[in-house]
């Protein structure tokens, strides 16, 4: 069984935020407004944070893209009471809108701020791709459209692409990758099977020093960073 992970090379990353934008387009993630940003209600599946250290003129700013870490020991999976968020066998942490009761415990528990709550009905309900996340199309009649207010959403590692790719017999990590990986102009994001020693991610992780965010919390995130 593959264990999907991602490597982000901070030396190659140009901080352009194409990953954030491509993800929004691919998954029809709702955009915010000035009001929503002020109230911190904007929905981001991928965000790029800037971290500054030092004083003028010895200042340094790191730009760090943060998707969902799809932790192997995910705090969100531990705390979800309704089994709405769970770890798939291939390592992807899935969010099932049908089961989500909107208790927001997972948002509280996520150490990476990867999750967002849908606090209002969005104008664009349907996903731009036509194979949206698990919802009533899979489970029969249940009165929720593809996106509804009151549930939590987050990055999915574009598993719709992965599943489609597997059905078509394509190589995941080379021919089929998540939208943020595909549209990164600097090729700073690499996706693949962490358990496959031949994959690009394994090769990169063995050739350079890597870090993961908030390692001390032992969440075992599957997004690795190669420092610049």
């Amino acid at each position, binding site marked *: 069984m593959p264990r999907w992970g991602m490597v982000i090379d901070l030396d190659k990353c140009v901080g352009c935020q194409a990953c954030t934008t491509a993800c929004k387009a691919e998954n029809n993630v709702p955009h915010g407004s000035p009001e929503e940003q002020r109230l911190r209600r904007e929905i981001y599946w991928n*965000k790029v944070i800037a971290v500054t*250290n030092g004083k003028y003129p010895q200042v340094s700013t790191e730009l760090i893209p943060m998707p969902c870490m799809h932790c192997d020991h995910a705090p969100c999976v531990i*705390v979800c009471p309704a089994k709405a968020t769970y770890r798939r066998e291939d390592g992807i942490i899935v969010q099932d809108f049908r*089961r989500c009761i*909107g208790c*927001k415990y997972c948002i509280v528990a996520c150490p990476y701020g990867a999750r967002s709550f849908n606090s209002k009905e969005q104008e664009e309900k349907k996903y731009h791709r036509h194979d949206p996340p698990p919802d009533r199309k899979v489970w029969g009649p249940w009165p929720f459209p593809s996106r509804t*207010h009151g549930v939590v959403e987050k990055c999915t590692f574009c598993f719709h692409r992965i599943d489609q790719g597997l059905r078509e017999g394509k190589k995941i990590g080379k021919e089929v990758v998540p939208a943020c990986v595909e549209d990164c102009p600097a090729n700073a994001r690499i996706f693949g099977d962490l358990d496959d020693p031949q994959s690009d991610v394994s090769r990169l992780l063995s050739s350079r020093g890597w870090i993961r965010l*908030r390692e001390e919390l032992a969440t075992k995130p599957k997004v690795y960073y190669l420092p610049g």
Partner: protein
Amino acid sequence: MNVTFSKMESKSRGFFILTATLGALSLAGFISFMISYIQGHQVLGSGNVIPWGMPIVLAIYLIGLSAGLHILAFFIHILGRKEWIPIIRMAVFMAIILIFGAMVSIALDLGRPEKFWRLFMFFYLNNMTSMFAINAIFYSCYLAAASIYLMTLFAGNERLSKIMGMVAFCWAMLTHGGTGLIFGLIYAREPWFSALKPFEFIMAALTSSLALLVVVMFVTFHFTCRQSRKELVISLGKLVAGFLLGLILLISVNELVHGYKPGREASIFMLAGPFSWQFWSFQIFLGEVIPLFILFHPRLGKTMKGVVIASALVVIGVFFERYYLIIPGLAYPQSYFPGKIEGIYGAVGSFPLTATEAVMSVGIFAFVGFLFILGLKHLELLPVDESGGQMPAPEKG
């Protein structure tokens, strides 16, 4: 000692006005809930940084108020302290409606309240590593146990009362300890992660329940023309003071340990950050320092008025403790990466109190009050003294 209980006489105008007001406020709360249900949580103050708002604060507050009341069961049945018997029914009834109100409050805070039933699918559709799911078991069993306990009290069966009293007490402690674990097990949030959280919560529950009991008892007896027994109130006050000291001890130890490593910055944020004025003025000064001063004062601590005022302040103070834990606790920005995180991702969270949320909160309180009044009217909860002299006597009026 022979104590009988009676229903409240409910003919006075005050009763009708009070009931009507509480009913109206509850209805207003319900309407604002419908507004948030239809329009989404954008009408509330929560966001992605502080996802939990007043309904959750109220929920844990009400659970605390509820759970602590069963310490009286412990005193009566195990320690054999008979002087608490007159108020035990009222106390247990309060506990039941408070836990019910708390569960309603949790249901109202859900993003999709119509799916609340999923919280009760124990072991079947629930993920039992989640403290929410475990707590659902606790709350349900506790509610059942407390209700059965009340029924045994009505039946007058001493042996059953003793058993159910202890069962209810155990469930009460598990319940509120479990509530504390909801927060204590979240290692992502540094102000919360602590093994002491269940005990902090239990201590806060004991303090606030008994304080609430003092206030409610005093007010209820006053309005139903009964005389509160001074020794009862004073000894309750002493219990409140004792538990309050315990609470202060636990909070201090918690912050002290966090003040070392890890989570030192979080501790400083909670004690000296932008919201700490709320901590110091409401929770500590108003809710702990002044009550302790009153309760340990040689003269004030022995008056009924003093104890009642101190208890009222404790009730308010513990509310702010719950609030301060959740909302400023969540406002502390998570440090994804060492250094200063720029802009919105590193900013302290903010929580505007919207009208809808305020009305909903008041409505929940009003709802619990409304149930209490109805209970007093229709159930035999209030004590009546037949032998005379030792118990409060009903006066005409």
